């Protein structure tokens, strides 16, 4: 039971001027939203829940929803709040000072940037792996068989934008296979790409095996051969700014525990 709800919104209206021009002003917009979430009943009084803010990559959506439920069952005094999004957006929020307790990223480069900024309170730990698949509409109308088909200009081909992990991994797999794809669209995230393939508007794309599984038959997945394959590694970390580091490290331990790993495996993730 929450005894109080505090609303904190920071507005930065002042700015300083240096010789070089404007100093960067800490934009508090995305942070303010998270502050509002985090500020609801964070005190540790009797009967008050501890809230744990977990920022997790969008591809973890279904798996982490289940992990949240299992963790809360084991720790009834904790209320886990999931903040799901593209790993790079989550990274930006953390670097802008969002009061996040745990960060689970879909690739190591976003994690590395958080580590370099000194925002972490533990060493990042790889807790899951994901493989990429070629994704086609159900029934594979264009007859796609491998990465080489993504170079066919008469097909409508979509990838994730190279700025997001699934786009980065897809380009690496294509480079491994020596294929220059005939891209028709760079989608902002894996879900947007999947939707367009499922609707039959794109003939083929590349995304995570776990995403393919989540559509329950709406799309078909085609394995990428072993020598062209790229593995996505998911690191998790306890952040330096965690409001209750004990609870946060409990959560991290839970994710890497047998129970957490079993849930991840159910959703198609491979263990580290």
């Amino acid at each position, binding site marked *: 039971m929450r005894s109080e709800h505090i609303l904190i919104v920071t507005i*930065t209206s002042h700015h300083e001027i240096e010789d070089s021009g404007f100093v960067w002003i800490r934009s508090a917009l995305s942070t303010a939203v998270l502050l509002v979430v985090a500020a609801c009943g964070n005190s540790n009084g009797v009967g008050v829940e501890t809230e744990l803010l977990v920022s997790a990559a969008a591809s973890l959506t279904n798996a982490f929803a289940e992990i949240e439920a299992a963790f809360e069952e084991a720790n009834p005094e904790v209320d886990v709040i999931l903040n799901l999004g593209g790993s790079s957006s989550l990274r930006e929020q953390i670097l802008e000072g969002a009061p996040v307790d745990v960060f689970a990223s879909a690739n190591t480069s976003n994690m590395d940037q958080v580590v370099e900024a000194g925002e972490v309170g533990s060493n990042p730990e790889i807790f899951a792996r994901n493989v990429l698949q070629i994704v086609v509409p159900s029934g594979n109308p264009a007859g796609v068989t491998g990465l080489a088909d993504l170079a066919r200009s008469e097909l409508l081909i979509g990838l994730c934008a190279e700025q997001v992990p699934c786009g980065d991994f897809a380009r690496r797999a294509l480079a491994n296979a020596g294929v220059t794809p005939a891209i028709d669209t760079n989608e902002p995230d894996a879900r947007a790409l999947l939707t367009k393939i499922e609707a039959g508007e794109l003939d083929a794309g590349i995304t995570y095996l776990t995403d393919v599984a989540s559509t329950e038959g709406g799309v078909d997945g085609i394995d990428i051969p072993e020598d062209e394959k790229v593995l996505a590694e998911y690191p998790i970390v306890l952040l330096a700014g965690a409001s209750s580091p004990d609870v946060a490290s409990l959560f991290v331990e839970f994710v890497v525990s047998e129970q957490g790993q079993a849930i991840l495996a159910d959703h198609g993730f491979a263990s580290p």
Partner: protein
Amino acid sequence: MTPTKPRRDKTAGRPPALLIVLGCLGLSLFVVPFVGLLGRVPWSELSGLLTSDVVSDALRLSVVASLAATAISMLLGVPLAWLLAKTDFPGRSVVRGVVTLPLVLPPVVGGAALLFALGRRGLLGEPIGELTGLVLPFSTWGVVVATTFVAMPFTIITVEGALRNMDTRFEGAAATLGASRWTVLRRVTLPMIGPSLLSGLVLTWARAFGEFGATITFAGNLQGRTQTLPLAVFVGLESERDTAVAISLVMVAVSLAVLITLRDRWWNSA
């Protein structure tokens, strides 16, 4: 014929302090984000960033698509506004609701609806594709369709409002002198609502210029073909932030200039 400005009440003296405080708080919501944006602008590299390939491709596409959307809005939106204002037909209020729906709908919903209707496997898209070979999604035409969908309501509501508020005696006089309804429209009505038509079209253009959600959902995102300025900002924000901020600055400056020029006129004639 130009509408006069409403008279300002000068008898009340000083405005109440509470209103000033709340008003300023409201204003800060709009101003603070732009101050934040200005603080991130890499002023010294600005010209280099704005002349890169990505930016010039996106700028060209944005200009072409927004002007095309404005032209289509004039061609199709003005007749629709005239029918809504000057004729009476069953279900008119429903039609009016439908044409203004894109104003309140999340653009991404509009984009998804367009995809299901006009996509390659869509309700109309499939027969159109079979007949003409034209595939709208992932093409520049798709960008034009998506931006027109979102922006045309501005033409319709502005022009319809002007038509309903105009003095109909001029049209009546022309009609009694033997002018056909078409001649009245061309020679009397359109010139009378000229200023409103212009502001409606400029608003339509500005909305089209800034369109994001429907475009990325329906037309996708590919440099040189479907990536307009707002899309370039979105995908660049996390990795090429300087470029994204530079484009944002241009968009804010252009939109602000257009809206400041037209705001008074818009409100007084609508």
